[in-house]
């Protein structure tokens, strides 16, 4: 938890530049303050961080390896490495954050966790950590998503969680967050809200980034072992931005170029403007009157109209750069990585892959050393991809 020039702690209001903050109903303010205090104390407590690291090691399979993607590198004319969050328990980086927050829940003496989920990755991860630690767990999920991702609903139920279909608004992720916040108001006493990305009110964006920064710190050391002192480019997909923030954290104060890749249909940096939603001031997709727009992406995990406030800030100051990838480009990238490297990435991750494939020789000079954060595995998406390829062919 070193003090960085870039990606250090936000100010006491949770501001990253003009972004972040804590835009919550007064009823939740004490819980946010309590959480901030608890997090700051825990994160400075070697006993806590050791426990966090132990659970990640013993239970979640950390450290995940860095894999040199040799065949794809040769084809592209760059040196490409993948940080393998797909190998973490439950299949993505989401577990890192969730283990940190559930441990914190126990430390705060709370007995119950609520969470929102879109496709179900964060929900499954939360249900998993709660089962492992013996916490009660309720997951809010848009009704449409519960239908699209019925298997993930069943997975959460197997893990002992209660899944509540959210029938308000667009009945997807954005509304699941609204509903989780509404519910949190009624049970802050004994319940922690385990937010799934670097978003929401302070201290969530900072806390989740810190709990994901293990990705970047591991990767930096592992690349070093592979002879790469500093990569030229670090690339990650961005939904809320937690995997990106996690990997960026390991390289923020190096010369590495940091690149976040959004879905074209959920491109808060590309198409958004500053706004306030879900407890934070950040970049949001919204209409002329400030009504939040529906995101649409082929990948449920990037289907969010906002972005974490720290990313908005990093974009603002030019420390990180954000690009958008269209649905059409994603499937091809998933196929290329599967075929040449034997890794079927999540559709979310495939956005980052697609950007690399597209930009070699342009944004990525030939010969560059590139680190791809392979945020998750594609098993969850295989049925969908199959349908889509059938549709095409």
């Amino acid at each position, binding site marked *: 938890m070193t003090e960085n020039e870039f990606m250090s702690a936000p100010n006491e*209001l949770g501001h990253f530049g003009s972004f972040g*903050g*804590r*835009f*919550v*109903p*007064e*009823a939740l*303010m*004490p*819980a946010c303050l309590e959480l901030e205090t608890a997090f700051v104390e825990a994160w400075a407590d070697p006993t806590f961080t050791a426990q966090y690291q132990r659970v990640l090691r013993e239970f979640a399979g950390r450290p995940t390896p860095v894999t040199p993607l040799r065949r794809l590198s040769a084809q592209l004319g760059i040196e490409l490495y993948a940080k393998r969050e797909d190998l973490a328990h439950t299949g993505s980086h989401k577990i890192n954050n969730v283990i940190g927050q559930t441990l914190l829940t126990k430390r705060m003496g709370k007995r119950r966790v609520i969470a929102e989920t879109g496709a179900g990755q964060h929900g499954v991860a939360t249900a998993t950590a709660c089962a492992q630690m013996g916490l009660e767990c309720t997951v809010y999920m848009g009704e449409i998503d519960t239908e699209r991702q019925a298997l993930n609903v069943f997975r959460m139920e197997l893990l002992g969680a209660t899944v509540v279909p959210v029938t*308000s*608004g667009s009945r997807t992720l*954005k*509304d699941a967050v*609204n509903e989780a*916040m*509404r519910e949190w*108001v*009624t*049970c*802050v006493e004994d319940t922690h809200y385990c937010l799934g990305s670097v978003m929401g009110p302070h201290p969530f964006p900072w806390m989740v980034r810190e709990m994901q920064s293990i990705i970047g710190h591991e990767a930096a050391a592992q690349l070093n072992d592979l002879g790469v002192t500093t990569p030229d480019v670090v690339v990650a997909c961005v939904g809320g931005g937690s995997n990106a923030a996690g990997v960026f954290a390991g390289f923020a104060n190096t010369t590495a170029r940091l690149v976040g890749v959004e879905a074209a249909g959920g491109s808060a940096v590309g198409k958004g*403007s*500053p*706004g*306030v*939603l*879900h*407890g934070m*001031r950040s970049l*949001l997709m*919204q209409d002329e*009157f*400030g*009504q*939040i727009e529906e995101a649409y992406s082929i990948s449920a995990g990037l289907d969010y109209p906002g972005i974490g406030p720290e990313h908005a800030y990093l974009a603002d100051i030019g420390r990180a750069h954000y690009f958008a990838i269209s649905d059409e480009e994603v499937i091809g990238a998933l196929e290329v990585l599967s075929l040449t490297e034997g890794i079927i990435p999540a559709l979310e991750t495939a956005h980052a892959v697609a950007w690399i494939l597209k930009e070699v020789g342009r944004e990525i000079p030939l010969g560059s050393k590139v680190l791809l954060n392979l945020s998750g595995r594609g098993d969850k998406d295989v049925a969908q991809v199959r349908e889509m390829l059938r549709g095409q062919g």
Partner: protein
Amino acid sequence: MTSLEKYLRELRSSGRKALVPYFVAGVTPDWITYIEAAAHAGADAIEIGIPFSDPMMDGVVIQEAALRALDAGTNLDSISADLSALTASVPLIAMTYYNIFHHYGVERAAGKLQSSGITGAIVPDLPLEEGAEWFAACATHDVASILLVAPSTPNDRVARITSATQGFCYASARMAVTGRSSDGGEGGRVVERIRQTSDIPAYIGIGITSPSQAHDASMAGDGVIVGSVLVQAVLDGASASEIELMVRQFRLAID
């Protein structure tokens, strides 16, 4: 002191408990008639909900009404235009989420409220710490920024909130979003804690759905805010005179 606060303090001095009904702007084409009806029935001020796509503090009833209003194309400009037809002279208080004002531009938004005859604003997701810009804009345009105190708010925060709130202090009766209600809630205790720090009028709201609940709340506080039960009636197709009747029952209960 803003005009609204002056008015409400005088109301209290007169010994009258304040009744503040809430309606969602734009929920029907003739939503203005509900405002007129409520004013007729003895409302002391009326909260006008400006619909937002993601109403984090609202329960299903108000969510549904907001959605209808948005589908009908409601926005700050259309509300302002609609309000120009209002004949009743009753203080109006805007209630919405911060992004609506933030996106409109806080200065411009406060001006718009003023020019629409709105003299107060409740923005539940804008806490004390983040409000400076908005509060300043409101001050310029004689719009009272009304803050909430929740049952969970610690005492030191109550003091800071009551010293910043204008018009009245909104005492949240329960840890819940709008619309939920079974018991009387903790409004009385919240009001007590407010009074230990300030003499600002303290109104109780959130989950007040029956005249008898309103009666109890008015015993503890200086006024009551009644929302979801009215909005539900509107959603169910109530006429303006039916709404007038409902508001009158609340009026009777607290007088």
